[in-house]
């Protein structure tokens, strides 16, 4: 890859990481104002996974995500207006205010939804990959899951099926060491590399807080899957800076752990690849974009009750 494209990529990745960070920071404010229905799970500290993985995908590639899916949606191309309006439950939201934080989806861009059910996105990605395969599309499906989801039987069913049918699916594990309120080393006895080996599935590990590393590993692995090499696993070691949900008092958490996370901040590391003027320019742009989208969402009208029932079935 040439120098220019290297720089372009670094800029692009930094922009995505930053957009996710600023968007989620804005969400925390909106939540505190009481504008967001329900609870939200922020991905602060994990943004490089979303940015790096989605950088390797085309618009026709499909993604299923998790309860912590804001970053994935943004990185896959969901517009910020639609994103914020959805989070605020507005009619102009991506899902017309029906889904909210845990269900941000943009089917036209291959973002098949965040998901409120742990592990549930994985077989959906598998099915999407099956469609790619049968319809002869030059496309891959990506199943994002957290390390906590390794305890769900669904992961294992999906790995077996993916390998058996040689499906063009990439499993991306966001391994942040936590599953809800408990460290995953107290939940899971096996490691993903050994599990992958048992299934004959390629496993690649990467520092999930180094967006350049994620992007280049993802590009490599996705290329293999795209060529028909069958399923693969990309395990991204990352950090959940906050609690499980925004507002989580994090009773059981060691303060040292939080400090260690701060030192690995993917945003700072992504910025280090840029010149100061480059970074500052992107920051100004992103700040303006977020502000505009938040303003749009704040002003957006709520959905109308009269329209709601009409969407249950296709008319």
């Amino acid at each position, binding site marked *: 890859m040439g120098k220019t494209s290297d720089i372009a990529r670094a800029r692009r990745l930094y922009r995505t990481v930053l957009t996710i960070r600023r968007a989620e920071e804005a969400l925390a404010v909106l939540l505190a104002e009481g504008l967001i229905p329900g609870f939200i799970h922020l991905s602060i500290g994990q943004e490089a996974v979303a940015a790096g993985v989605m950088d390797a995908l085309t618009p026709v590639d*499909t993604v*299923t995500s998790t309860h912590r899916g804001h970053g994935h949606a943004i990185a896959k191309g969901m517009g910020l207006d639609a994103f914020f309006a959805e989070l605020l439950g507005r009619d102009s*939201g*991506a*899902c*017309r*205010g*029906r*889904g909210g934080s845990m*269900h941000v*989806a*943009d*089917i*036209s861009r291959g973002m*098949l*939804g965040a*998901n*409120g*059910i742990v592990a*549930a996105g*994985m*077989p*959906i*990605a*598998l*099915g*999407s*990959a*099956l*469609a*790619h395969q*049968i*319809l002869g599309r030059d496309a891959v*499906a990506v199943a994002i899951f957290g390390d906590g989801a390794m305890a769900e*039987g*669904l992961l294992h*069913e*999906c790995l*077996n*099926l993916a390998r*058996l*049918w040689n499906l063009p699916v990439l499993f991306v594990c966001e391994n942040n060491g936590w599953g809800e309120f408990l460290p995953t080393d107290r939940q899971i006895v096996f490691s993903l590399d050994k599990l992958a080996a048992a299934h004959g599935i390629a496993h690649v590990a990467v520092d999930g807080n180094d967006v350049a590393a994620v992007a280049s590993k993802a590009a490599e692995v996705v290329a293999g899957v795209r060529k028909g090499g069958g399923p693969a696993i990309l395990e991204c070691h990352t950090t959940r800076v906050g609690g499980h949900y925004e507002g989580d008092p994090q009773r059981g958490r060691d303060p040292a752990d939080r400090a260690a996370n701060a030192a690995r901040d993917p945003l700072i590391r992504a910025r280090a690849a840029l010149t100061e003027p480059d970074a500052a320019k992107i920051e100004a742009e992103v700040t303006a974009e977020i502000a505009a989208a938040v303003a749009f969402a704040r002003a957006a009208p709520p959905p109308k009750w009269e329209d709601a029932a*009409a*969407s*249950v*079935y*296709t008319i």
Partner: protein
Amino acid sequence: MTELRYNHAVNRAMADAMAADPTVVLFGEDVAGAGGVYGATRGLRDKFGADRVRDTPISEAAIVGMAVGAALSGLKPIVEISFIDFMTFAMDAVVNQAAKMRTMFGAQCSVPMVLRTQHGGGAGSGPQHSQCLEAWFAHVPGLKVVCPADPASAYGLLRAAIVDPDPVIVIEHKALYATRVPEPDSLPILPIGKAAVLRPGRDLTIVSYGAALRAVSDAAATLAKEGIETEILDLRSIQPWDEAAVLASLARTHRLMIVHEAVEAFGVGAEIAARMADIGFDELDAPILRVGAPFMPSPVAKALERRYMPNADNILAAARRLLA
């Protein structure tokens, strides 16, 4: 005379749909090589290829979840779960994913998948292979549920389910697969949500569906000998169900009974009775009666299973109460 068997009608519906639309695919445990536990998928892999007709591992949760994803990405999957009892492993994909996606994604997409399964007793299959769980699915907004009672319905409703843009659960009945009728002149696609009057009558209405209709017909024949004319409605669709047809029949007979093989308590009959106790109240000349399975797991012993399932005796007893 050529005849049409129920399982062949199911098979033909899939074959015709797959021939008409290359995005229709079929997968499930032993559907390809073995042709399904009840032979309903036999020969389809040979006709349409191993790409479109696939045997899966024993992974119900993943299989049904996969159908959801396939439906989101351009296929029209038909997935077979060989006994409805095994749906207990796949409820998330059906209920939390397929059923909700259209609404929770703000109508960005439809989820055009069909889940074929079968329910019911009478074959000594025991408590974990005889359940009728259709009421669960009927309670979930976003799903449609049909229960074909005869070969023509098996064909017509399955074709309708496959072209329907939303998730449809097609529930066949293990005791019906071998039933046959004279080959019909035509096999139309049947609309989901429409009931059929199987027998007209003026004295009482019996609403039923699936295999229970046989006992209902037997009971009606006995009543007819006594000069009592039973109107029999085959619901065909459970969700949505044909409220207008039931109400119209009730308005003719003023007496209503609902019969199904599922456990009576909190079953499909409850909804029909409840709805008629509301919108049909003024038409009622007698209590609304239900006949369903008693509140116990279905027993395997023949002597018990016979009594467990709704039969002509139960139905007659209820009819006499209704007409008293």
